[in-house]
C-alpha cells in the first residue's frame, strides 16, 4: 500500500486530472439520472466538443512554447466563412475547398509566426490584433449574413459517421473493431515501455498495479467504444480528433521538433545557446496553430451546416482554459496534448451535464470559470507541496541505487568498442 501512495503522490499531477474527469463524469451521471452516458449523448459530446479539442491541441503547444493565441476563434470563423463562400459561390469541389482552407489557416498562422518569431512582437498582441482583424474580415466576407447550402459530403466532416462494415450486429462493427485494436496497441506499447524503463532501473509500477491500471483503462475504453458503437458509430470528426491526438502526442514527445518546443519554453536562452533555431520553432508553432484553427473552422461550419459571422466566438478562451486545466504552465515549458484533451473534456462534460440538467448558459459560464481557477489552484498548491518536501537542503545526496548489470555491461562494451571515455572523438 505504501508503494501505491508513493506512486500516486509522485504522479498526482498526471493522475489528478484524470481522476477529476472521472469524478465529474460520475457526478453528472448521477445528477442527470444516467442520461449523460446514454450512447447518443456520448456521441453528441464528441461531436459538440471536437472543435475546442482540436484547438486545444494547437493551443497547448503554443503555450508550452511560452506564447498564446487569442485569434483562433476569429480565424476559425474566417476560414469557415471563406470555405463556405468557395463552395457555394464559386462551386469549388468540397475536398479542394478543404485543402485550400487548411492552407489559408496555415498562412494566417505563418503571418502570426512572422511577427512573433522574426519581428519579436509578443504573441498576445499579434493575435489580439488578429482576433479583431479576422472577426471583421469574417463579417466582410459573409456580408454579415449566414451562408448555407453546403455540399452534403462536406457537412459529414462535422456530423457524419464512419461507414459500417461486416455483418449486421446491434453494434457498429468498425467502431468496435477500432476500439479493441486501440486497447491492444495501448497495452502493447505500454508493456514495451515498461520493459525498457525496467532495464534502465527507472521506477515502474509494480506489475499487479500495472495490470490493474490497464484492465481499468481498457475497460473504460471498451465501454466508451461500446457506447459510441451502440449509437451511430464513431463520428468522422472523432476519427479526425483521434488521429490528431496520436500525431501531435508523437511529435511532442518523440521528435526533435517536440523536444525543441519544450526546450524553448523551459529556457529560451539556454535553448538558443544549445543551437536550437528558436525563431524557426516559434514560427512553426504559430503556423501550426493557424492550421488547426482553420481545421476547427471547417469542422464548425460543417457541423452547423452553414458559415455564420458569430461562429467561433470565445473558442480561444475555451481552448486556453482546456490547456491550463490540463496542466500547462503559464510560463511555458510544461504541458501535454493529452492533458489539454482531458482539460477540454472536463469542460465539455461540465457543459453537457449542466445543459442536460437545465442549468442556464449564464450559470454554466460562471461555474466553468470557477473550475478553471480551482484546477490551476490545485496545481499551484501541488507544486508548493512537492517543492517544500524536495526543496532546500534536499539536494540529492542520498546514495545512488546500483544500476542494473546488463546496462553496465552494455556501456562497458560500447566504450570498449568505439568510444573510449566520454568526449573523445569518434563517438559517432
Amino acid at each position, binding site marked *: 500500500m505504501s508503494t501505491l501512495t508513493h506512486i500516486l503522490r509522485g504522479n498526482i499531477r498526471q493522475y489528478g486530472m484524470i481522476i477529476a474527469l472521472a469524478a465529474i463524469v460520475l457526478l453528472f451521471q448521477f445528477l442527470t439520472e444516467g442520461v449523460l452516458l446514454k450512447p447518443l449523448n456520448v456521441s453528441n459530446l464528441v461531436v459538440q466538443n471536437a472543435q475546442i479539442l482540436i484547438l486545444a491541441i494547437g493551443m497547448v503547444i503554443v503555450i508550452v512554447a511560452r506564447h498564446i493565441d487569442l485569434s483562433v476563434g476569429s480565424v476559425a470563423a474566417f476560414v469557415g466563412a471563406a470555405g463556405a463562400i468557395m463552395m457555394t459561390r464559386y462551386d469549388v469541389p468540397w475536398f479542394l475547398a478543404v485543402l485550400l482552407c487548411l492552407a489559408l489557416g496555415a498562412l494566417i498562422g505563418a503571418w502570426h509566426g512572422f511577427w512573433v518569431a522574426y519581428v519579436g512582437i509578443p504573441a498576445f498582441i499579434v493575435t489580439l490584433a488578429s482576433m479583431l482583424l479576422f472577426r471583421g474580415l469574417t463579417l466582410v466576407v459573409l456580408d454579415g449574413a449566414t451562408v448555407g447550402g453546403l455540399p452534403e459530403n462536406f457537412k459529414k466532416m462535422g456530423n457524419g459517421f464512419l461507414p459500417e462494415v461486416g455483418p449486421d450486429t446491434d453494434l457498429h462493427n468498425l467502431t468496435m473493431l477500432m476500439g479493441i485494436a486501440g486497447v491492444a496497441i495501448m497495452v502493447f506499447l505500454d508493456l514495451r515501455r515498461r520493459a*525498457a524503463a525496467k532495464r*534502465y*532501473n*527507472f521506477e515502474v509500477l509494480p506489475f499487479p498495479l500495472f495490470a490493474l491500471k490497464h484492465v481499468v483503462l481498457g475497460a473504460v475504453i471498451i465501454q466508451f467504444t461500446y457506447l459510441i458503437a451502440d449509437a451511430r458509430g464513431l463520428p468522422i470528426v472523432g476519427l479526425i480528433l483521434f488521429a490528431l491526438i496520436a500525431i501531435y502526442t*508523437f511529435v511532442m514527445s*518523440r*521528435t*526533435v521538433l517536440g*523536444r*525543441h518546443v*519544450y*526546450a524553448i519554453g*523551459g*529556457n529560451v*536562452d*539556454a*535553448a*538558443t*545557446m*544549445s*543551437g*536550437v*533555431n528558436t525563431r524557426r520553432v516559434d514560427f512553426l508553432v504559430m503556423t501550426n496553430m493557424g492550421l488547426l484553427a482553420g481545421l476547427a473552422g471547417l469542422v464548425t461550419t460543417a457541423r452547423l451546416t452553414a458559415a455564420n459571422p458569430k461562429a467561433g466566438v470565445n473558442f480561444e478562451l475555451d481552448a486556453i482554459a482546456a490547456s491550463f486545466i490540463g496542466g500547462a504552465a503559464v510560463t511555458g*515549458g*510544461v504541458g501535454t496534448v493529452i492533458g489539454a484533451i482531458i482539460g477540454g473534456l472536463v469542460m465539455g462534460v461540465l457543459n453537457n451535464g449542466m445543459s442536460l440538467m437545465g442549468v442556464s448558459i449564464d450559470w454554466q459560464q460562471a461555474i466553468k470559470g470557477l473550475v478553471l481557477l480551482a484546477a490551476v489552484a490545485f496545481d499551484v498548491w501541488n507544486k508548493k507541496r512537492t517543492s517544500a*518536501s*524536495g*526543496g*532546500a*537542503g*534536499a*539536494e*540529492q*545526496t*542520498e546514495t*545512488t*541505487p546500483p*544500476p542494473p548489470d546488463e*546496462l553496465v555491461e*552494455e*556501456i562497458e562494451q*560500447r*566504450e570498449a568498442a568505439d568510444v573510449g*571515455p*566520454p*568526449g*573523445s*572523438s569518434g*563517438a*559517432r
Partner: protein
Amino acid sequence: MAPPILEMRGITKRFPGVLALSDVTLSVERGAIHAICGENGAGKSTLMKVLSGVYPYGSYDGEIVFEGQPVAFSNIRESEAAGVVIIHQELALIPELSIAENIFLGNETSKRGVISWDEANHRAIELMARVGLRENPLTAVKHLGIGKQQLVEIAKALSKEVRLLILDEPTAALNDDDSSHLLDLLKGLQGKGITSIMISHKLNEIERVADAITIIRDGRTIETLDVGSGDVDEDRIIRGMVGRDLEHRFPEHEPSIGDVLFEISDWTVMHPQDHGRVVIRDAGLSVRRGEIVGIAGLMGAGRTELARSIFGRSYGSRTQGTMRLDGREVQLTSVTAAIKAGIAYVSEDRKGLGLNLLDDIKTSVSAAALDKLRRGLTVDEREEVVVAERYRRSFNIKAPTVTAGVGKLSGGNQQKVVLSKWMYTEPRLLILDEPTRGIDVGAKFEIYGIIQSLAREGKGVLVISSELPELLGLCDRIYTLAEGVITHEFDREEATQESLMRHMTTDAR
C-alpha cells in the same frame, strides 16, 4: 567576556527523507565577523534560513538565543524586527525602481499610507553614505553595476536597524575591486557595532576579514576556528570542509601540446545595440591541441563577450576578424554553425544560459546534439538514456538516475550536466566561462580533473575565470584582457597573480 549576541543550540532540521541539519551549534560573538564555510549542500543556507525565520519556529528542533533572549521567529518580518537581516545570494532588488525606492521597499516611511519622498530620499542619502555609495538616490537600480547593487542591499539592511547582518555569498558575483570594497565595508560596520555572519566559498576573503570560522559538513558542525589564534590558513579550512586533506587543489597533469587548433586575429566586436561602441578590439589568440589556455580579466573587460562572439557570434554586432580552425578560415555566424564546427561554450550563467531547469538529466545532456539521437522521425530515447548514464558515471554526477530533474541538483552536479551536454557534441574547442563559480571545493577538484582529461584527449580548452589561482593552477598559457584588448600573453611559468593583475588593470586604450 561579553555574552555572545547569538547562540544556536542543537538545531535539527528535517525535510522528508533528508536530515538537512543535525544538532548544529553556532555561537557568534558580539561585534564579530563570523564566517560559515562548507561544501554546497552542507546545510549553511538551511541554517541561515532557520535563523531568519524562513523556516518558522516549530519546523525545526533546537534553541535560538539572540541578545540573551530565546527567540521563536515565525517569518522574516519578525526576525527583521528583532534586527536580524539576511541578504541572499540572488539580490532581491527591483531593477526598474530607484535606489531610494529599493532601500525602503516594504519599509516605506509614510504618513497614513502616503510616502514622503523628500524624507525617504534624504534618509537614503544618509544610508548610502554609510555604505560608501555615491549615486543619485533616484537612479534606477538597473543602471548600477552588480557591486553597487550589493551596496544598495546593505543600505537596505541598515535602514532596518540591523544588529546581525547575514550575507550569503556576498562576493560570488563581484570582481576583485568590488569584493575588496565590500569586505572593507563589513570591517567598517563591525567598528560601528554591527555583527555579521558571512557564508562564502572564497577562502582568501574569509581569511582576510573573519574573526571566527564555523565549518559545517553534512549538516553537522565540525569545528569553529578562531582566526586570531594564528594557525588558520586556507588548507586548514579546506581540510575541515571536505573532511580530508587536499594535497593538491589541482590534480597532477602532464600537458601534451600539439599544433595550433584554433586561432582568431584582428577580432573586433561591437556592442549589440550600440553599433558604434567597441567591446573587443583587435584581439588575437590561439589555442593548440591539448592546451588549456586561460583568459584573465576583470568583470567588464569583455571576457564573456569575447567568448560568445567566438561561439557563433551569439554576442555583439559587426564582428570583424578572421577565425581559423585547424588552419582553415571559417565563418561561424550562428550557434548551430559553431557547434557543427566543433566549438562548445559552457556559460558562466548556468541557470540562465546553460540549462532548462524543467528538464531531467538525460534531456539536458542530449539538448545540444539531439541530431545524433535522431532515428528517422524520432529521438532514440533508449540510446539517450545510455548516453546520459555514461556521463553520469564518468563525471560522477550525484543523482539516483538520469531521470532526476536538473533543477534540484547542486551547483557542482548541474555544472557536470552542462559539461556532459557539451561533451556529447564532440567539440574540438571547449570554451569554459567561469567553470567553477558557486561550486564547492570537492566538485571543483573533479571539474579540474575533467578539464585536464579533455586536454589530454587532444581538445583545445579556453578557460575564463575570475579566480587567478584557478587559472594559474590549470592553464598552460594565459592571456590578460583589459577593456576589450588583449594586453599580454603569459606562459605558465612566468605568470603570477601580481603580474596578471598588473596587465588586467593596465589602461589599454
